């Protein structure tokens, strides 16, 4: 599955109103931000994965590529904290080469507390990303636009929101093709595990990707115009919708359950904070 591609399967999650899902995702992110940074953060990361599997019928191995993409950031955060986190216990490591070079012991103090903090921070970011993935992977991008239109956004702007999300996997596919073409001529792969090569591989794709996106974007804009995209606004007519995106009972049910849990959790956090000061 391509990153952020809408997964086409009927499920409870896909049947929910996009507004319900985005609100849940947003408030889940707030909850993750308020949660203490410790190893329990892994639970906040697993909850969206379990929900996506049980209620969205989308299994983790289908989007493992997306999770792996987040890993370099987690590793970078971890290393930053290990080297620069101010907190005991420290693990002193002597770098012999540098010691010989400077003529005195060169000792690097690695923070073990930083390992815990860095890992928790990385998992927090992954948990936040998974919350939004839960929304994106189970939502028809045009339903998002439609839902926004229902709450007052103009048709052209609301359609563009859905259209942009529909475009995302297409651009990603184009990026893959261009990366492959560069690699076919001996250039470092943008999929390389070496971060410098990965960066070089990404940078070289910029011009062809931009030109391709511009060409395709222009053609798509033309194709939309000649099928009346601007007509409702130009003629002042109401556009017809064949598909209805409504806020149904199940949405109310989810919203109520979620916010009840959310406020309970907040109350518990405040109580913990007041009593223990953490």
């Amino acid at each position: 599955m391509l990153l952020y591609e809408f997964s086409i399967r009927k499920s409870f999650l896909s049947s929910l109103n996009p507004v319900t899902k985005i609100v849940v995702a947003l408030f889940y992110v707030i909850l993750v931000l308020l949660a203490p940074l410790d190893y329990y953060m892994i639970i906040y990361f697993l909850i969206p994965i379990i929900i996506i599997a049980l209620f969205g019928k989308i299994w983790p191995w289908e989007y493992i590529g997306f999770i792996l993409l987040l890993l370099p950031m987690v590793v970078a955060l971890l290393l930053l904290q290990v080297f620069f986190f101010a907190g005991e216990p420290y693990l002193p490591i002597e770098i012999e080469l540098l010691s010989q070079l400077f003529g005195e012991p060169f000792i690097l103090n690695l923070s073990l507390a930083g390992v815990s903090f860095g890992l928790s921070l990385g998992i927090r970011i992954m948990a936040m990303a998974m919350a939004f993935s839960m929304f994106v992977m189970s939502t028809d991008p045009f339903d998002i636009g439609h839902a926004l239109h229902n709450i007052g956004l103009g048709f052209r702007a609301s359609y563009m929101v859905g259209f942009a999300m529909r475009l995302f996997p297409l651009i990603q596919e184009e990026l893959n093709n261009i990366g492959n073409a560069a690699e076919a001529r001996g250039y470092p792969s943008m999929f390389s595990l070496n971060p410098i090569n990965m960066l070089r591989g990404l940078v070289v794709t910029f011009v062809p990707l931009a030109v391709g996106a511009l060409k395709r974007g222009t053609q798509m804009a033309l194709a939309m115009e000649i099928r009346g995209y601007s007509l409702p606004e130009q003629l002042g007519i109401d556009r017809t919708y064949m598909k209805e995106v409504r806020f149904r009972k199940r949405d109310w049910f989810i919203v109520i359950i979620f916010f009840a849990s959310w406020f309970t959790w907040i109350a518990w956090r405040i109580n913990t904070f007041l009593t223990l000061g953490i």
Partner: protein
Amino acid sequence: MHKIPLIELKDIKFQYRRGTEPLFEGLNLSISENEFVGIVGETGVGKTSLLYLINGVIPQFYTAKVLDGEILYKGKPLGENALGTISQEVGLVLDDPEAQLFNLYVKDELAWGPENLGLTQDEIERRRQEATERFQLQDLYNRTTYGLSGGEKQKIAIASVSTLYPKVMMLDEPTSGLDPSGTELVFDAVRTMAKKLDMTILMVEHKIEELADYCDRMILLKGGKIALDLPPDQFFEEADTLGQSGILPPQVTRLGQNLRKKGFNIHPPLNLSQAVPLFTNLLGPNDRNWKSDNLTDKRNDIDPLVTINDLVFGYNKHVKALDGITLSLNQNEFACIIGQNGSGKTTLSKCIKRIVKPPKETIFVNGKDIRDFSSRELAQTIGYVFQNPDHQLFKDDVASEIEFGLKNLKMPKAERKDRVKDTLERFNLWDLRKVHPFRLSRGERQFVALASVYAMEPTLLIADEPTTGLDRISADKLMRELQAINKEKGVSVVVITHWIQLAAEYGERLIALHQGKVLLDGDPRSTFSQAKELAKTNVRPPQITQLCDNLRINPLPLTLKEAEKAIISILNQ
């Protein structure tokens, strides 16, 4: 009473805002109701721009520096009507189906245009169902738009415009990149729609044989004007004028014309169904065997370069794109891979180049497992020209583009400089060496892409549909260059193509894939002789070969020259 033409262009002078000279000057054109008009001309002559002018895309979407003359629809100017309003009268289908499908589901795509018109849900549903039936979209109706084949996408694009109920439908190269069955499907659907809805059709297309079969009238655009405007049979009589624009009449027509020049009293046919009875009568009861000294199988059965053993590959576990491919690609060979859209041609070539990872011990190049090659070794050994030249141009000028791969191979500067110079000269790109690749025409960009791969001196060069979007002249030029690389440099060449005439003329070996398997593999003559097997791939032999097969001529001619020789030889027996 004089009947008013449906569309009339009077003395049009037009220049794009950024154009250096007018594209049209004194262009006049008149189209009547219910006509099926084919528009041809060499690449860049303004065929697409002509369609854009007719339905107001120029100047409303693409601005003009100069636009003089009158464009009338039913005797009145279309004027400043919104494009969406004009589209209800004059619909336009663009050449890239990908760019016209922006909804997620086919059913939503069909409804999208009428939804914008603010029609009632019942009316939209009626139109949607009608289009579904007319274009036989029942199986696709609930599918997503990005999971479809090229032919299916084009069919949806046409059906989606048809739900606006335009009086005129203009189509810009609607079958580009489609296999023969996809092409036939599109042409049939357009003709059916035109008849049922009393629609006028204007179609820009490179596929002359199909146009000749379906059109009432054909137009040649040349030098900013309409150079020819005639019914197909008369149109193709103007061989010299057409030749100057690189337009070749259908093969059976040219065969008739050539024989007529040699004194045979025949009226050149337009299509296969006219040609078969005509030539059957001409040949009479003569023995259909003929002899020629030059007919040799072109295949070189020498040392294998690439060996593929029982290759099974899928993009997901449910669908096998390749299902047990076993074959060898030989040294110094020119092979063409053919097959319908989705048969696994590109996947196979990507596996050979390791763009996608084949299973271990399934592909060997010079005896070494492709999985064990380093990236640089792979780049040096196998060159790959992608279908879309725009995906493989990375630098700011043509010379740097050619140098790009050589730099990656860490070639010393002096050697690199010489190699770039040689390559620029070989591909006639010297004068363009400082030009940005994206400023070149599609044909030129494809040449730059090929030159950039050639400069790396690979042992095997794979070109994936390199002639897509090119006219016959540019396509021939590119294939001749590939042939020269093969003959002069001893590079093994593999070309994936739908253009079966090119495969017949240039390929020494044809590999026909079907549902991820090798269905046929041999020299073109033996491959085309197995008509029943070949039919499974939806690939048809060249028109001339089909004719000769129908006439039971043996051995089977592959080219126009061979067919002509065979017929004369049979008649002289």
